[in-house]
């Protein structure tokens, strides 16, 4: 059995009822589009980080966002996850759920998970505790006060530990992990939250070639069941996973299409890929 199969199997078991059932609210995707971003503008002290940006992400898609530094990739993620309020525009999750005006926690509970650019885990707690906290359960105060791990939750954590290759490190403090392992732990924290939409910011920064390959396999296997949006600088990596690529430039979409379309787009060559060649 290849590594890809193992990963795929682990991911599929997600949907076979191992998970404690706290269902995400129904998301209306009758037009196949999961995320609508329309006319979005954000400025910081006069600098337009996002400028009338439009983006549509289909349900089950794996989308890569690329663009030079300052193109607005991280700002876009900040807006979708509720960290930054835009000056103008709309962000809808499915047909009906308006994400603007919701807090980070509410958006996370709707099933939008996020991995930060710099790996962010709870460094003073064990790998196991990190996953336990990220698990898709009731996040209210009384239920966390009296929460007790059920056997199925334990199995679930153990499976994710297998998937992210940290089984033997589960007692270790997350702060003691290597950079690449922290990246994986954070991806594990995303997985265990069972999100509908995953926003993944630079997942392979600091990873070895082998780790990068595994990450690519994992993300590809996730698409379909979930929707994945990846921001990445590593063009090799993008090439290996992407079906559709969106190029951002100065806060708006410059081009969109398959990797080869985008690579041959003269505007893109000029502003971004041109630098590589």
């Amino acid at each position, binding site marked *: 059995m290849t590594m890809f199969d193992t990963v795929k199997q682990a991911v599929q078991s997600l949907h076979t009822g191992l998970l404690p059932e706290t269902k995400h609210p129904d998301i209306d995707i009758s037009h196949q589009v999961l995320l609508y971003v329309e006319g979005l503008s954000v400025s910081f002290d006069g600098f337009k980080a996002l400028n009338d940006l439009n983006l549509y992400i289909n349900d089950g898609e794996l989308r890569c966002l690329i663009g030079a530094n300052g193109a607005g990739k991280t700002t876009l993620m900040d807006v979708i996850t509720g960290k930054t309020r835009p000056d103008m525009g709309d962000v809808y999750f499915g047909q009906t759920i308006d994400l603007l005006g919701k807090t980070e926690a509410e958006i996370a509970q709707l099933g939008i998970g996020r991995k930060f650019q710099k790996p962010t885990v709870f460094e003073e707690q064990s790998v196991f505790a990190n996953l336990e906290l990220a698990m898709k359960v009731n*996040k209210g105060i009384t239920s966390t006060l009296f929460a007790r791990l059920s056997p199925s939750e334990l199995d679930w954590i153990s499976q994710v530990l297998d998937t992210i290759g940290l089984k033997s490190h589960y007692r270790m403090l997350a702060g003691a992990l290597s950079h690449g392992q922290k990246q994986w732990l954070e991806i594990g924290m995303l997985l265990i939250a069972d999100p509908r939409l995953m926003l993944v910011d630079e997942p392979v920064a600091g990873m070895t070639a082998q780790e990068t390959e595994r990450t690519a396999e994992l993300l590809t296997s996730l698409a379909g069941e979930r929707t994945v949006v990846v921001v990445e600088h590593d063009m090799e990596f993008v090439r290996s996973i992407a079906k559709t690529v969106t190029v951002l430039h100065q806060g708006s979409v410059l081009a969109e299409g398959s990797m080869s379309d985008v690579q041959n787009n003269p505007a893109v060559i000029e502003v971004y890929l041109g630098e590589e060649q």
Partner: protein
Amino acid sequence: MSTIRNQFSSLHDLREKAPVFLAVLFGISIYASACNLWLPEDSIFYVSTYTITLLGKYLCYALLALAVDVVWGYCGILSLGHGAFFALGGYTMGMYLMRQIGDRGVYGDPILPDFMVFLNWQELPWFWYGFDHFWVAILAMILVPGILAFVFGWLAFRSRVAGVYLSIMTQALTYALMLAFFRNEMGFGGNNGLTDFKDLLGFNLQSDSVRVALFLCSALVLALAYCLSLLIMSSRFGRVVVGIRDAEDRARFIGFKTENYKVWLFVYSAILAAIAGALYVPQVGIINPGEFSPLNSIEVVVWVAVGGRGTLYGAIAGALLVNYAKTRFTAVFPEAWLFALGALFVGVTVFLPQGLVGLFKNKKLPWCNRKKTGEEQS
């Protein structure tokens, strides 16, 4: 892997950590009480009532330190105003004790406390109603600081005030309360505060046995607060709180409404501080606005820093040690105490960032080596 499920239950920590703590605490307090009550005064083992009251006072400080550790050590909220909750708790107890004096005051008024007669007040202000009942005082002791902490925390944490700004706000809170309580018109005895207490629930506060009972009560409450805090901190709630301390953004993005966690933790901590204040007042026999002084709150932070943050027992040990040192030091060389305190804080911050507890945890001391290494290998 299966053992971890048990380790992630709150009871596990309680079983691990509480017995030693409780044995030491109750061992010492029962021994001291027995020596006071049943030994003749000329015995070398006799513990004077003065010492008993002093120990009782230390235990109240220890409870206050525990309250600060809960918010600071576990959640990173550096409150420089916990003295305010301590003093408010003290005032609610003081009001009850004032009403208990009845007509035995200097002016002999059956209803009005002395200071009101002195100010020529004709009737009891509305907020003194009911304080002749003990349960009303207890209720007020929990509600008043609890509601204040809730409102303060709600405003501060919703607006995402954190770090130094929050510390300054807490400092301002206690300072403002101090200025308010200094005013005679507030109706809490102004400058002099509340004093000349006679009895509590009908028992004479000056008698040895009541002093011992209050001391034992403080020990019992401290033990309960320790166990409850241990339970809370080793539950998933506790892990969320530590997560908020270390990476609040991460906690938000996995779906925790961190401001709610912070508010309720702050309220819990404020109530602990208030209970400490309420136990403190009958033992020292006075409560005045000086208890709100910002310096007091800063001292508490020093106790916790010296003992070690985020362990609960560290805060308690720190409070006991620093206060014992203070008692000794101020008897010999009173002017230098504040310098010593400052030096202690600087010293601990530079050399022992984890406090005295850190010495044990990091195995810097030779006798701590044995057990730990064996555990980690397994």
